[in-house]
């Protein structure tokens, strides 16, 4: 399951028309090489989620094109794709393993095989004891894990994640980041990860794409190295400062 390249080519997008028109994205261009993780950060409401919707084929860009594996992304279901959202959006009438399995069933897998795969991925995220629980019985972090297991069980070549850890408490978030990192290393899809948390972006991403305010364009693309990911290292602090500076946040240290 290796990824392919995702490319945003001069994307501009707006909602509405005439006086109600809202320009969300303007001339956004960047590439995500196969198998890498691009973390998109930016101010609230700057259109990061819109970017993912376009990449997922949920909407067609007003201008420009999104290319996946060399071909332009079309509207409609994309079987290379897995997505995780801020609210996991589990189907409340299905058990945990049924929720993970249903995507596989849609793709034509037999019931037994789908459930077995579901169990496998739920084990990977540490929820083996909750296979038959219902979503209403889970905590926020657990539900989010199910959502991630569901996306990964599809063995997607393209994984889009829209602030999946935003609604989760700080401790759980760090744990989930580490778990996700391990999973991504194992399955190596091409990933676009949207977050408002810059430190999260440094830990998870190979590259940080910093967006500007709406109408958003790409401000800066910051590569991230292995040393940067160590939160206790100096290079991490420097990377963090660099990214925050783009977002208009000064470090607040030294004569201002």
């Amino acid at each position, binding site marked *: 399951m290796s990824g392919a390249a995702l490319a945003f080519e001069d994307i501009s997008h707006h909602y509405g028309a005439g006086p109600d028109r809202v320009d969300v994205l303007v001339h956004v261009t960047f590439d995500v090489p196969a198998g890498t993780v691009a973390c998109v950060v930016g101010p609230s409401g700057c259109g990061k989620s819109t970017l993912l919707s376009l990449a997922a084929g*949920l909407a067609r860009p007003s201008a420009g094109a999104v290319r996946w594996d060399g071909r332009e992304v079309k509207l409609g279901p994309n079987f290379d794709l897995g997505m995780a959202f801020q609210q996991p*959006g589990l*189907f409340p*009438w299905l058990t945990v393993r049924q929720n993970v399995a249903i995507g596989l069933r*849609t793709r034509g897998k037999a019931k037994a095989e789908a459930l077995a795969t579901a169990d496998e991925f739920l084990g990977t995220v540490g929820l083996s004891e909750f296979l038959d629980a219902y979503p209403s019985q889970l905590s926020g972090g657990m539900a989010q894990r199910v959502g991630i297991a569901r996306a990964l069980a599809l063995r997607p070549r393209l994984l889009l994640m829209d602030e999946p850890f935003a609604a989760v408490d700080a401790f759980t978030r760090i744990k989930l980041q580490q778990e996700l990192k391990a999973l991504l290393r194992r399955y190596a899809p091409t990933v676009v990860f949207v977050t408002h948390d810059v430190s999260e972006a440094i830990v998870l991403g190979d590259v940080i794409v910093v967006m500007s305010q709406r109408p958003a364009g790409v401000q800066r693309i910051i590569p991230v190295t292995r040393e940067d990911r160590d939160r206790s290292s100096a290079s991490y602090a420097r990377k963090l400062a660099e990214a925050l500076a783009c977002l208009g946040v000064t470090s607040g240290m030294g004569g201002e």
Partner: protein
Amino acid sequence: MSRMQREERAPVARYRWLAAWRDRVLLPLVGILLVAIVWQAVVMLYRLPLVVLPEPWAVVRTLAGLLPTVAFWRDVGVSLYEFAAGYATGVVLGVAVGLLLGESRTFRLTASPVIEALRFIVPFAWIPLTVLWFGTSYTGKIVLVAYAVFFVMTVSTTRSIMQVDPTLTRIGTMLGMGRMALALFVHLRAAAPAIASAARAAAAVGWIAVVAAEYIGASAGLGVMITNAATSLQTPTVIAGMIAMGLIGATVSAVVGWLARTRLDYR
């Protein structure tokens, strides 16, 4: 239960079952007892003849007398049969059409004026027409119940489908579901609890429709029994019949509600 009972201040959790017992059983019994007492008092004070208002005990005796008779259960059976057939038809068709209207804006806009117009012609207004068409046969009542139930279910289902959380739709699309799969496996399932409570309301409507239809033109059934008793001024039987009608209606609603809650409600 009702809006009114929700207003009740909840006691400490330990005694909640006690409070529930008080609300659901004790107080209603007190109420019924009070009504019976007032009823009895009115009859005695005004020396009302049996024809106008029988004593509560006379009604109870009459009801007890009806229970072992074959005729009574045959009438009840006829009404229940007409209700069940019409209800099942109405629910299936109503949900199907409601789903279609909920999914497709085009269909909804097209059908809206017709539905709105028909809404004002209450099921009761259709009774003479069904009598003309189907005579006093069972078919007429079944059609009437089916119509009444169909209407309620279509409108409720459409509304419930339209109110499904759009996140679920997005998830389904992401998982690769097409429009039909989304409609059947996501929207319908998600709207199921709301549809189920509509089904419960529809059961009450349907039962009322059956009995009303039987008042106008029928050869057998609970409504016929009541009307006949009314014409021959057998008031105790009339009241006994009304009580039977109310009890059966409540039971049917409760059964539908129970089925709905256990099978469909995932909350």
